[in-house]
C-alpha cells in the first residue's frame, strides 16, 4: 500500500514538474532576452542561453528611476487599498446571497450576474465617474471604477460559501444568540479563509495588472501606476504606426524588443515574490476547527 502510494506520488510530481517547465520556459526566455544585447537579439534571434549580456534595457526603464519607484509605490498602495475594499464589499454581498433562505435570492443573484452580461460602454461610465464623482487625476481613479467589486468574485464567493458552510453551523450559532453580523464575522469568515485568500490573490492581481483605469482617467503622470507606465512604453510604437504621424517621430527612441521583455519582467516579478506569503491560508484544518468549535 505504502509502496503504491509512493509510486503515485512520484507520477503526480512528474506531471506537475513537466507543467511547471512549460510555464517557466517562456518566462525564462523572457528574462534572458531582457538581459541580451538588442543588436544580438535581432541578428541571432531568441535563445535560452544568454549571449552578449547587457543591462541596457533595464537602464532604459529605470532612466527615470524616481518615476518608476513612485509608480511602484502607487501600485502597491492601490493594490492594497483596492483589494481590501473589494473583498469587503464582495463578502458583504456574497454572504446573504449564499443563504438559501434569503427571499428572492435568485433575483438578487441575477441582478449581480446581469452586470457581467451587459455594459453600457465606456463613455457613459466615464461621464459617471468624472462628472459626478470627479475622480479624474486622483488616486480614486485607480481604485474605484470597475474593479471595486465584480460579479465574478461575488458569484464565486457565493457558490463557495453556499457549499462549504453547512446550515447546521449557522443554525447552531443562531441558537447561541449570535446576530447576523456576529455570525458573519465570527463563524463564516474564519471558515471561508481559503476562498477569501484566493479571491484576495485574484483581486490583487487584477489591481496590480490593471492599466485601463489609468488609461481612461489619468492625464497626469504623477498618478501613474507601474502598469500604466509600462503599458504606455509598450503601446507607443503600435499606436504611432497606425496614425498619420509615423514618419515624423524618432522611432529609435521607442522601446525595442529587449526593452519590451524587460518591461514584462519588471511588471510581473513582484507579484511572484508576494504570492508565497498568501499560500499559508490555503491550508486545511481551519474548517474543521470552526465546525467542531
Amino acid at each position, binding site marked *: 500500500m505504502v509502496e503504491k*502510494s509512493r509510486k503515485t*506520488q512520484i507520477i503526480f*510530481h512528474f*506531471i506537475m514538474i513537466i*507543467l*511547471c517547465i*512549460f*510555464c517557466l520556459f517562456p518566462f525564462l526566455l*523572457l528574462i534572458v532576452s531582457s538581459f541580451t544585447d538588442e543588436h544580438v537579439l535581432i541578428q541571432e*534571434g*531568441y535563445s535560452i542561453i544568454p549571449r552578449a549580456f547587457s543591462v541596457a534595457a533595464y537602464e532604459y526603464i529605470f532612466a527615470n528611476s524616481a518615476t518608476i519607484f513612485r509608480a511602484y509605490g502607487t501600485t502597491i498602495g492601490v493594490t492594497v487599498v483596492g483589494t481590501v475594499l473589494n473583498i469587503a*464589499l464582495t463578502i458583504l*454581498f456574497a*454572504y*446573504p446571497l449564499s443563504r438559501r433562505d*434569503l427571499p428572492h435570492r435568485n433575483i*438578487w*443573484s*441575477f441582478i449581480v*450576474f446581469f452586470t457581467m*452580461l*451587459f*455594459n*453600457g*460602454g465606456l*463613455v*457613459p*461610465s466615464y*461621464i*459617471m465617474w468624472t462628472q459626478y464623482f470627479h475622480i479624474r487625476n486622483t488616486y480614486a481613479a485607480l481604485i474605484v471604477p470597475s474593479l*471595486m*467589486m465584480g460579479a*465574478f468574485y461575488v458569484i*464565486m464567493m457565493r457558490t*463557495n460559501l*453556499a*457549499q*462549504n458552510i453547512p446550515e447546521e453551523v449557522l443554525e447552531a450559532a443562531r441558537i447561541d444568540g449570535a446576530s*447576523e*453580523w456576529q455570525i*458573519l464575522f465570527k463563524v463564516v469568515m474564519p471558515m471561508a479563509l*481559503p*476562498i477569501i485568500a*484566493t479571491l484576495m*490573490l485574484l483581486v490583487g*492581481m487584477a489591481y496590480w*495588472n490593471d492599466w485601463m483605469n489609468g488609461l481612461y482617467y489619468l492625464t497626469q503622470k504623477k498618478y501613474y501606476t507601474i502598469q500604466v507606465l509600462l*503599458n504606455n512604453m*509598450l503601446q507607443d510604437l503600435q499606436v504611432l504606426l497606425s496614425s498619420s504621424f509615423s514618419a515624423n517621430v524618432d522611432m529609435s527612441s521607442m522601446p525595442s524588443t529587449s526593452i*519590451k521583455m524587460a518591461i*514584462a519582467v519588471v511588471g*510581473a516579478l513582484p507579484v*511572484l515574490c508576494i*504570492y508565497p506569503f498568501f*499560500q499559508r491560508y*490555503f491550508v*486545511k484544518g481551519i*474548517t*474543521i476547527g470552526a*465546525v467542531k468549535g
Partner: protein
Amino acid sequence: MRLKKFGKRHRRYIPLYLMMLPGLVYLIINNYIPMAGLIIAFKQVNFRKGILASPWAGLSNFEYLFSSDEAFIITRNTILYNLAFIVLGTIMAVFIAILLNEIRGKLSKKIYQTVILVPYLISMVIVSYLVNALLATETGFVNHTIVGALGGEPISWYSEPKYWPFILILVNLWKNFGYHSIIFYATVVGLDSGLYEAAAIDGANRWQRIYHVTLPGLRSTIITLSLMSIGKIFYSDFGLFYQVPMNSGPLFDVTNTIDTYVYRGLMQSNNIGMSAAAGFYQSVVGCLVVLLANFTVRKISKDDALF
C-alpha cells in the same frame, strides 16, 4: 394584515439587506446607470445635439455585423473557440487542482502553485512576442531547433492557417489554467474534511475518494464558472486573436472573431454607434444562451443554478 406578515418575514433579513447595500449601490453607479448607454447602439450619435436628442438609427448600426460573408466565419470561430476553452480549460484546471490536493510535501506544493500562475501574469502583448520567438520563420525556436533537428523544412507558421486552432487553444490553456486551478483548489481545500475521514473509514482508496468526495464537491464551482463563461460566449480575448497571430492576413479564416472583425472595420472611423451595436449583439446572445443553460441546470439540480 398581509403587510404586517410581510414585514415580519423580512425583519429577520434586514441585517442581510444592510450587508448587501454597499455592493448594490456600487453596482447601480458603476454598472446599471451607465447601461443607459446601450441606447447608443440605436442612435446616429451627434454630440452637438446630445446623445438623447440624436436621431434614431433603427437597426442600421447592426447591419454591418450580418451583411458580409464573413458573418458566418466570425460567429463560428467565436463560438467554437469558446467551447473548446470552456471544456478543455475546465478539465485541465480540475485535474491540476486535484493533483495539487493529493500531492504531499508542503514546499513542492507551494512551488507548483506559484509557478503555474506565471503565465497568467504575462500580458497578451508579451505573449505574442514569446509566441513569435518560438514561431518566427527564420530565427524562431521551433524552426531553428526542433524542425531543424528532425530534418524537416522550416514551416512558415504565420501563413499556415491549419496549425492555428491548436496554437490558439494551447496558448489560451497555457495562460489561464493556473488561474482556474487555483480557484478549484481553493474549493477543494475548503471541502469538509469530515467527508474524507468518513470515506477513509469506509475503506475507500484514493481514486474512490476523488470520485466520490472531491469531484462532487467541485460540481457547483465547475457549473458556476462554466455558466459565467457561457455568458461571454460571443466575446473573445482580443489579445489572443489579434496580437498573438500578429494580425496576419492569411490566418484570418481561423483567427477572425467578432471582436477582431469589429476592430478592423471600425479602427479608422471610430464609429461609436456601430461599436456599441456590436457589444449589444454580443450581450444579448450571451444572455439568451446563459438563460437557457441556467434553465437546464435548474431542471437537473436546483441548488447549482446561478439564479
